[in-house]
Every structure is written in structure tokens, then in C-alpha cells.
């Protein structure tokens, strides 16, 4: 017992000394404070306000060529909807010009004889959308279809009461769980936290450690009795603290600036985030120890973390619809697990069937990364 304790004490002491030295270095180096604290705040503000996929108040041109009361009622339905902002124009030509100039995102045309055709059961409305933003166009199409079916059903119900039954149709009632207000910030802001923490975590260690390799101060550490894993721990702990400050600022702005609800527990959120920060720091450490050059390290970090976290994490694009080969790649990316965790903890609550498996993968990645960084650092020692 006592021999074990005596073996541990100098070790803890050495790590503690290193942590103190590194912390001083961090505090005195404005660039790591800038990366760890200022950058996350700027990024979350910029992207939080800048990114939005809301399809609301869509400007649409409306051409009503039929003067019947039915046509007017139909259009009134669109006008009342929160999704549209109708601009009434006289001719299709005018509407198309507005769309070409991208002043409106769609054109709804109620042709003449609409009421007459409708009585014959072949009434039709035309919808024109601009395909240059296909996602938006598809959602606009869904809303227009929805507004018109709702109107048709209302008509049918009124017709049924007067005896002319035209019912016999399925009516869809959509319910969006976890995001009743249909606010795209609810999923974009947690996703942005992933993006920001990925970048910050990996950059902090990648840049700073690579700089030490370049300056030769890392080699200087090797002649001291500290072991390589102690060096790595000593490097990680202060940056971990710095990234944690960045994380807390991100979570605060998500909650109070962008009003994203936090339905799970804050403690769980912080714990899984700590796992993720360790993974991100580990990636940076591994890259910098492997290439030992600031330029290459930062390029690799950007290539390996930022774009994949943006495109392949499920932050924006649904992973289940990707081809198998791409899906396999996404399983290798830590960001994928953290996106699932944050979206669930923020919006759905403490759902352990999502939290546990994803957190376990992150812990496994911490293990792998620390083994790998140690192996790489050891090799340099020899």
C-alpha cells in the first residue's frame, strides 16, 4: 500500500506542476483565450442569428382570375396562414416577373372558371415554385397543399350539411413533437454548439502543441523525468478548462438568447459535453503530435473536424437517407454522437435509450484517442 502511494505521489505532483505551468502559459497567451472563449461566443452569435431554415411569411404572388366567392375564400385561407405573405397581382406575367426577380418564392394561380370547374369536380389551382432552393420549395408546396386541402374539407363539411355530400376524404393532422412552434433554431443551435466545440477543442490542442513541437520546447520537456502520458495530461487539463468555459457560454446563449428549451437535465448535458470536449482535444493532440507542424496540423484539423461536423453529423442532413458507404463514414465521426445527444437533451429530455449508447461511444473514443496519442508521443521520445 505504502509503496503504491509513494509511487503515485511524485506522479501527481509532476502532473500538477505541469498543469500549473500550462495554465500560466494559457492565461498569459491571449491567442488561446481568444480561441477558447471569445471565438465560441462570436461563432454562436453569428451562426445562431445567421442560420435559419424557417419557412414562415413566405412571399407568394397570388393571381386570382376567377371572381367567384369560392375563389376569394380559398385565397383568404392562404392570407390567414402564418406561413404566407400574399402579394396580389393581376396577371400571371406579373407574378412570373416577381418570381424571376426572386421577390416571391412561389406563385399561386386560381384560374378563371375555378368555381365552375369545382362544381364539376375538376377544379384546379396552379402552384409555381422556384427550384433554386429545393428544400424551401418542397416545404412551401407542402404548406400550400395543406392549406388547400383544409379549405376543401371545410367546403365538403358545409356541403354535407346542405345535403350535397362530397366527403369521404382523409384529413391529416400533423403534430410536431419536441418543437411545437416549428422553430428551426431549436435544432440548429444545439447543432451549432457541436460545430463550435469540435472546432475549438481540436484547434486549441492542435495549434498549441504543434507550436511547441516547432519551437522545440516539447523536446525540452522530455529530458525532465516526466512521462509522456503525464505531459499529455498536463496539456489537456488547462485546455479542458478553457473549452468548458466556452461550452458554458454557448449553452447560456442557446437557452437565453435563442430561447431553445432545455428539457433534459443540465448535469447530464454538461457531463456528455465534457466527454465530447475530451474527444475533440484528443483529436487535436493526436494530429499535432503526428505532424508536429502548425500549418499542416491546422489544415488537417479543419479538414478532419469542421466540414465533417457540418455535413456528416446529422446536424442539418438526415443520416438515415445517406447511402450506406457514407453512413459508415458517419459512424467514425464523434460529432454524430454528440449531435444526437444534444438534440435529445435539449429538446426531448433525459431519454436514456439515446443518451447511454451515444455517451458510451464517446467514452470509447476518449480511450482510443489517449492510447493513440501516447503511442505517437512515445515514438518521438525514442
Amino acid at each position: 500500500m505504502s509503496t503504491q502511494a509513494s509511487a503515485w505521489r511524485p506522479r501527481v505532483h509532476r502532473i500538477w506542476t505541469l498543469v500549473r505551468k500550462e495554465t500560466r502559459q494559457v492565461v498569459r497567451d491571449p491567442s488561446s483565450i481568444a480561441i477558447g472563449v471569445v471565438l465560441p461566443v462570436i461563432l454562436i452569435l453569428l451562426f445562431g442569428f445567421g442560420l435559419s431554415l424557417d419557412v414562415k411569411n413566405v412571399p407568394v404572388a397570388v393571381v386570382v382570375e376567377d371572381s367567384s366567392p369560392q375563389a376569394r375564400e380559398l385565397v383568404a385561407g392562404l392570407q390567414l396562414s402564418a406561413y404566407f405573405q400574399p402579394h396580389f397581382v393581376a396577371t400571371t406575367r406579373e407574378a412570373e416577373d416577381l418570381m424571376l426577380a426572386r421577390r416571391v418564392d412561389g406563385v399561386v394561380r386560381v384560374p378563371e372558371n375555378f368555381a365552375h370547374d369545382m362544381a364539376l369536380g375538376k377544379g384546379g389551382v396552379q402552384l409555381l415554385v422556384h427550384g433554386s432552393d429545393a428544400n424551401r420549395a418542397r416545404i412551401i408546396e407542402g404548406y400550400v397543399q395543406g392549406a388547400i386541402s383544409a379549405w376543401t374539407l371545410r367546403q365538403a363539411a358545409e356541403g354535407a350539411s346542405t345535403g350535397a355530400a362530397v366527403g369521404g376524404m382523409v384529413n391529416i393532422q400533423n403534430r410536431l413533437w419536441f418543437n411545437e412552434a416549428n422553430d428551426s433554431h431549436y435544432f440548429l443551435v444545439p447543432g451549432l454548439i457541436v460545430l463550435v466545440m469540435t472546432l475549438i477543442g481540436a484547434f486549441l490542442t492542435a495549434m498549441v502543441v504543434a507550436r511547441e513541437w516547432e519551437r522545440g520546447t516539447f523536446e525540452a520537456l522530455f529530458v525532465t523525468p516526466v512521462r509522456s502520458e503525464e505531459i499529455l495530461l498536463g496539456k489537456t487539463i488547462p485546455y479542458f478548462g478553457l473549452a468548458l468555459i466556452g461550452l458554458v457560454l454557448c449553452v447560456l446563449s442557446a437557452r437565453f438568447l435563442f430561447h431553445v428549451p432545455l428539457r433534459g437535465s443540465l448535469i447530464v448535458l454538461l457531463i456528455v459535453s465534457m466527454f465530447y470536449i475530451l474527444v475533440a482535444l484528443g483529436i487535436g493532440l493526436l494530429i499535432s503530435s503526428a505532424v508536429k507542424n502548425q500549418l499542416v496540423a491546422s489544415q488537417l484539423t479543419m479538414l478532419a473536424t469542421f466540414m465533417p461536423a457540418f455535413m456528416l453529423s446529422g446536424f442539418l442532413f438526415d443520416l438515415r437517407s445517406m447511402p450506406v458507404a457514407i453512413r459508415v463514414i458517419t459512424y467514425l465521426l464523434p460529432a454524430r454522437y454528440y449531435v444526437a445527444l444534444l438534440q435529445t437533451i435539449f429538446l426531448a429530455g433525459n431519454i436514456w435509450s439515446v443518451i447511454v449508447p451515444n455517451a458510451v461511444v464517446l467514452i470509447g473514443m476518449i480511450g482510443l484517442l489517449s492510447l493513440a496519442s501516447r503511442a505517437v508521443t512515445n515514438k518521438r521520445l525514442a
Partner: protein
Amino acid sequence: MKSLLRILALTRKELLAVLKDRRARFSLIIPPMMQTLIFGYAASYDLNHVPYAVLDQDRSAASRELIAGLDGSGLFERVGELRRESELNSFIDSRRALIVIQIGSDFERHLQAGQSADVQVIADGRNSNTAATAMSYVGEVVRRFNDSWRADHGLAPPSVNVEVRAWYNPNLETRWNMIPGMIGTLTMMQTLLLTAMSVAREREQGTFDQLLVTPFRPAEIMVGKALPAMMIGLTQATGVLLVAQLWFRIPFAGSFVTLYSGLILFVLAAVGIGLMLSSVAATMQQAMLFGFIIIMPFSLLSGLTTPLTNMPAALQALTAVNPLRYAIDIAQRVYLEGSTLASLTQDLFPLALIAAVTLTVASWLFRYRLQ
């Protein structure tokens, strides 16, 4: 003439410095093409695999027909059949199903009686955009069901039919928007970084002083730095374009001359920004940091993944200095709309302006810093 020769010599030297290393040659061409391939598949808002569960409390011929419509669309995959409403939570919460469809017990009775029958569609809103897309797919299936049900039961077709036409992208495939947009996005990063580092590196290594004692004028040095970076940028853009054309086969409505005119201006603007950063930065590390800090907002606030019109007015105004925004618009419009140079002035002019301003400032800073 002499000036031209000097610029050519400097260009040759710069290209050699960048391309002499096999690893560097590789890293300039292969990653953008690989990224196009991977992100080209990944970056799509379209869904082709919507896991859904069904709570069919009616178990009638009509409800089975509706479910068969979902299964037959090829977009949905049934992952479960619920017996009780209480099971609904677990399917959505654990993300096993993106949507659950609940058909009430009097579904068929209502339909037979000529009344409207309600179907509940519950979607996992953790990604509300994906959920809205999935719901619109369900809407389509239900409309088809309504049509065939009414036809089979001797009822008139639904009284209002919406005829949808989409300009330039008839099937509304997001890939048609995304992949052209990637030409600029994937090119900008390395072009901008390469130039941002170029002067800073020489300054740090002391070779800039050697350049100064040669007969080069500051403007010549700048052109000599800009030209090779542009050549590399355009080569990268061509690589991305080749993947878009040969692999994804995105329809191309416009002309390559127009596209390349736009790309040349875009790369020039990116190079101008890089050179400006490079002449401001004191060290390589600063240049790199400036570069990254500028690339991130440029690539995220470019209109590629989320529309520019959704941004607050102040941010929209800020994106006016983002060259990528114009490059994406040019590429998408040349690809889909077949736009000509004349109709692209609203994009070409700002690009030219950005290039002119940044290059002027950079060359002024060169001179100022040289003295």
C-alpha cells in the same frame, strides 16, 4: 515586357514552391474531389428512408390500403406496428421512428359514410426540417389515397387539385442546388489559406527581404503571388466540376464560358482577401488564424445550406462582402437556369469590386510594409 518576364519567373517559383512536394500536390487536388463525392451524397435535404411506425386502430381494408400506399412509395420503411397509444412515446423518443401514423378506429366507417376521416401524423421534431419534409411526403401519399378511394367508390375526384410546377428543378432535388454550390465552397478554403500564408511564410523565413533586393516592384510581387494561387484555385474548381458532371451528372443548362468567367472573378476575390490578410499578418500563425476565422463565417453564411433571406437585415448586409455568396449564386444559376453573363451582373460586379478593393489594399500594404 520585362515586367511580364519577371512576373512569369515569380509565378514559376511560387508554383514550384507549392507543388515540389508530392504530398502537397496530392493534398491540393484529391481532398476537394473526395469531399465533393462524400458531401455530394450527404448534403441533401431529400429523404429516401423514413422509418415509420403505425398505430392502426381500425384494421380495416381502407387503413391497410393507406399503409400500403406508404410502403409502396419507396420512401418509407415500416419499423413497427403499435398496439397501444402508450407505445408511441418509446418509438419516437428512442429515434426508432421518425414518424408515427395513427389511424383511428372509425377510419373506414367515416370514409364509407362520406365524412372526413382523421389520420394523425406524429413526427420527431428534433430536426424540424427533416420532420416537415417527411410530413409533406405523407401528405402526398394521402392525396393519392384520396384520389383512388373516391374513384373506387364512385365519388367525384377531390374538388380542388393542386398542379405543382417547379422552375429549373422539376423534381425539387436538393442535390441539384448543393453540388453546384460546392464548387466555390470547396475551392475557397485552400485558395484563401494558400495566399494568406504565402507572404507571411516568406516574411518569417526571411526570404521576403531577398525578394526586396531584386528588381521586382511591389505590384509585380503581388501579381506573381496572385497568379499561381488563382491557377491552383481554378484547377481545384475544375476537379469539383468534373465530379459534378461525370459522377453526379447534374444537368448543366448554361455555358462553361460563363461559369468560368464567374469562377475567375471569384478566385481573384478570394486571392485578394488572402493577400490582404497576408500583408496584415506578422507571422504565419496569425495569417492562418485570420484565414480560418474568416473562412468559417464565409462558408456557413453563404446561402448554401440555409437561405440568405432568412438572416436578419444586418447580417444580410454583412454577407455582401462574402465572395462565396456570389460564387454559389453564379454556379447554381448557370447550372439550373442557364443564366448568361449579362443576367449575372448582380453577382459579377460585387466580385470584381471585392477583388479590386482587396488587391489595391494588399498592394498598398505591401509597399507600406516594405518601407
